[in-house]
């Protein structure tokens, strides 16, 4: 982890009519760190993440992603980030190889690079016998691992992961986090949201959103000390308990 | 029963909250009635023609006046040369050219014989024939007037009475057809899609594990469209009677009963389609692309079935809307009772039963 700032927000706000989903959040994320973005459902996490990815325009406030302005330079931002959500990442009706080639090509890899990357990815994930099969036929865990690998195929500065390990068994989750560590080791910043508190422990730093505001931002250890808790679970309960916004 | 009703209620919410689709469901029949009632017609009117009058005498002028007065023709030009005629056909899409030779009137008076040449654009053979006949009739009319001075013996007059539709309104033929088309297509389309959608989004699983019989679940999907179609039927009938002055000479209740039968038939067909498709796109494609034009043609209101090659005539027998069209005409326009249409009703009933039977059989109680 370096001290280079890859994400910097300044009073970033998103309003929907009278409702303030995200209220003047201000924070920084450093290059290469694994940054956990936590919060209860309805706290404003997804809204915040969408703004950072360039999917939604902020109502007010500023931010730079990988040095690019969130209002004026969304095209550059997109070239330098990766994204993976639980709902979708890959095309089910294309094969493993076709998905790799498509996304690699979109992100500007040359034909030679594409070829090399495909082989590398398939080997790393052990998908040799599945390479020509439709993604729809893969079990969920393999899909998610593949989706992550494809999300970072262009070695972006930051990769945004929206609850990437939902519905996946503990062994696959562990493997998934191995991949995350490898990516982090290569200098890619990981911005991940999750509900699994043990995963929160894997992060370098964590932020907790409650009712649209960041209530805490620190390393897991510091947070546990701060709230006299033994686990991140307890920290979460402490902070989220007082939340006014209930999730559905 | 209570569970069934809660499913039905959910389905009503789905349907009535989708305002855009609802707009189409109600808007389409209304648009069709207006169009068919006022705009679409088999008659030929305002056909663009040119006259090539080399004679420019009293006789030709009279004939031209007659042509101008009729609303079938619109004289766009009175050109002089033959070469311009071909151009007019190709460029301005004129349908007919009438050519009068130089000494038309003189020949008529002195030789008792004159020629007129009509050239028709036969791209549309029907229009060409009709217009040629009209023009010839007008010219013959003029000839008749010339003969008025002679008393002709042995004249036979025919007194023609137009039954059911004395004003020869096109709507009389079309409106029952629209009823058939709209009720059939809308029901099939909507039901098929609605059911397949559950399959596609995955909520079908939930329905299948619920304590209520899955088949009843499917029926609950059809019910809102059943009511919607009844509303559509009422709208069409009201519009036809008020706007288009169509009669309902027979029993209204019989009409409604038969329409209900067609609706159920269409819903069964939609059900059958949904059983055999996995995606909304396929369901839509089959219902729309596969059924729209064939239903339009095979119901028999756009083109007479007797004109079609025999194999096609046989195919029309399996199109439910064909039988319904006959039934509606008999009830609405001819004012006949059940005794006249029991055969068609039986066929429609049989088709419905068959479709329901097959859908029941092919309904998969589990997701494949």
């Amino acid at each position: 982890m370096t001290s280079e700032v890859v994400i910097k927000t300044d009073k970033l706000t998103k309003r929907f009519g009278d409702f303030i989903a995200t209220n003047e959040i201000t924070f920084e994320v450093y290059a290469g760190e694994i940054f956990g973005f936590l919060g209860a459902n309805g706290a404003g996490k997804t809204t915040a993440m969408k703004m950072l990815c360039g999917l939604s325009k902020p109502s007010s406030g500023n931010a730079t992603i990988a040095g690019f302005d969130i209002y004026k330079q969304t095209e550059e931002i997109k070239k330098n980030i990766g994204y993976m959500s639980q709902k979708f990442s890959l095309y089910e009706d294309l094969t493993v190889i076709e998905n790799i080639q498509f996304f690699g090509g979109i992100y500007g890899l040359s034909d030679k690079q594409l070829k090399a990357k495909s082989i590398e990815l398939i080997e790393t994930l052990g998908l040799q016998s599945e390479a020509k099969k439709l993604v729809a036929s893969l079990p969920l865990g393999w899909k998610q691992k593949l989706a992550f690998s494809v999300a970072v195929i262009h070695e972006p500065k930051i990769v945004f992961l929206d609850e990437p390990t939902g519905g996946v068994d503990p062994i696959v989750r562990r493997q998934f986090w191995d991949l995350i560590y490898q990516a982090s080791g290569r200098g890619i910043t990981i911005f991940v949201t999750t509900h699994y508190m043990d995963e929160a422990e894997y992060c370098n730093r964590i932020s907790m959103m409650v009712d649209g505001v960041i209530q805490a931002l620190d390393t897991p250890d510091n947070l546990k000390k701060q709230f006299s808790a033994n686990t991140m679970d307890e920290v979460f309960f402490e902070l989220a308990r007082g939340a006014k916004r209930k999730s559905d | 029963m209570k569970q069934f009703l809660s499913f039905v209620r959910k389905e009503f919410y789905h349907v009535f909250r989708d305002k855009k689709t609802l707009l189409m469901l109600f808007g389409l029949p209304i648009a069709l009635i207006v169009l068919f009632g006022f705009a679409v017609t088999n008659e030929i009117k305002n056909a663009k023609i040119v006259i090539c009058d080399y004679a420019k005498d009293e006789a030709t002028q009279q004939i031209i006046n007659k042509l101008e007065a009729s609303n079938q023709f619109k004289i766009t030009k009175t050109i002089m040369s033959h070469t311009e005629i071909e151009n007019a056909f190709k460029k301005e899409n004129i349908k007919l050219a009438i050519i009068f030779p130089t000494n038309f009137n003189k020949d008529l008076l002195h030789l008792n014989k004159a020629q007129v040449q009509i050239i028709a654009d036969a791209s549309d053979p029907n229009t060409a024939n009709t217009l040629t006949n009209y023009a010839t009739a007008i010219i013959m009319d003029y000839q008749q007037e010339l003969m008025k001075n002679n008393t002709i013996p042995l004249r036979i007059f025919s007194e023609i009475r137009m039954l059911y539709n004395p004003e020869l309104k096109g709507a009389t033929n079309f409106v029952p057809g629209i009823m058939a088309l709209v009720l059939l297509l809308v029901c099939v389309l909507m039901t098929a899609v609605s059911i397949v959608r559950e399959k596609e989004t995955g909520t079908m699983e939930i329905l299948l594990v619920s304590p209520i019989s899955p088949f009843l679940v499917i029926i609950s999907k059809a019910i809102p469209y059943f009511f919607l179609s009844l509303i559509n039927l009422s709208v069409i009938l009201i519009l036809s009677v008020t706007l288009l002055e169509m009669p309902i000479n027979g029993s209204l209740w019989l009409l409604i009963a038969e329409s209900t039968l067609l609706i159920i038939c269409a819903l069964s067909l939609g059900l059958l389609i949904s059983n055999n498709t996995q995606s909304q796109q396929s369901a839509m494609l089959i219902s729309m692309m596969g059924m729209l034009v064939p239903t339009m043609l095979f119901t028999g209101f756009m083109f007479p079935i007797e004109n079609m090659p025999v194999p096609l005539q046989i195919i029309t027998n399996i199109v439910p809307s064909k039988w319904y069209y006959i039934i509606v005409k008999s009830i609405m326009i001819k004012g006949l009772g059940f005794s006249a249409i029991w055969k068609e009703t039986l066929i429609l009933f049989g088709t419905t039963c068959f479709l329901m039977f097959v859908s029941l059989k092919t309904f998969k109680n589990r997701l494949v």
Partner: protein
Amino acid sequence: MRTLKFLLRKEFKQIFRNKALLPLIFVVPIVQLLILPLAADYEVKNINISIVDHDHSTYSQQLISKITASGYFQLADYGTSFNQAFQQIEKDKSDLILEIPKGFEKKLVRENSEKLFVAVNAINGVKAGLGGAYLNQIITEYNADIRLQWSQPDKFNTTSVINVTSTNWFNKFLNYRFFMVPGILVVLVTMVASYMSALNIVKEKEVGTIEQINVTPIKKYQFILGKLIPFWVIGMFIFSIGLFVVGRFVYGIVPVGSLFLLYGYLAIYLIALLGMSLLISTFAETQQQAMSIAFFFIMIFMLMGGLFTPIDSMPTWAYYIAKSIPVTYFIEVVRMIILKGSSFSDIKFHFVVMIGFAVLLNGLAIWNYKKTS
């Protein structure tokens, strides 16, 4: 550019891999093109006539023979009861009734004039009009025949006779298929191109994959092009198969005019159409909505486009609606080029209009697309 290549490759793969969709896109239009033109025929043939003959005279027999020999009519019933004949009409077994009154022959000869009674089932107004006209024509001819039998020929030399000759251009054999097939082909291509492409775009919206596209460097215009180009290609392909395979080998249609011109127009038409489907997709959130909207418009197009009924016959307000629909122009152009061999200068106006449509629809679509995403 490279991005577009990848997008197109993905789109084509997805379309062709969809085993359920593929036959519907390709097979259904072709099959319909084979069957439907056979069904579309306005000619009034095989009119069923019931004759009620109260006279049973030589004259009535002669008239009846003339009617049945004419080829227009088929004798459905011959009897002496009008009610019986009327029942035939109620059952749709007969289209019109000719009633010859008692004493027809005698009255005609003695009093120099007599009446015949005709009742026509006028539900189908056009059929009734034509049927009545044909019958009238036969009766008039019969009338002339009788006069010839009775009167001296020279009495008629003082009457003037106008001889009308008619020739048919562009479709010498009056083959109705030549007229319908190009028109139906246009409608089928329209359905596939506009309907399918609209559904395709909305599907991504509905399923949510559009979000993934939005975070990538794929520009909006590339995404749009990626969605529309495949259907432009498919549209061209179906048209070609329809024209050259089905049109030529099944119906014997050989275009008289320039194919280059035809395809040029087709290309622009498809662009306009795809613009419309893009526009539709911006208004729909679900496939069902897109389908409903597209269905509505396609029905209107089919009816108002001059495919089955001429637009000149429409009342003014309807005429202008017809003139503001793209399909109308293409149907006209297709018939002009294929049957009449019209050249570019003949259809210059149509070209301008279609380019206008293409620009307008695509412009509106892109503007609305930007607004809603």
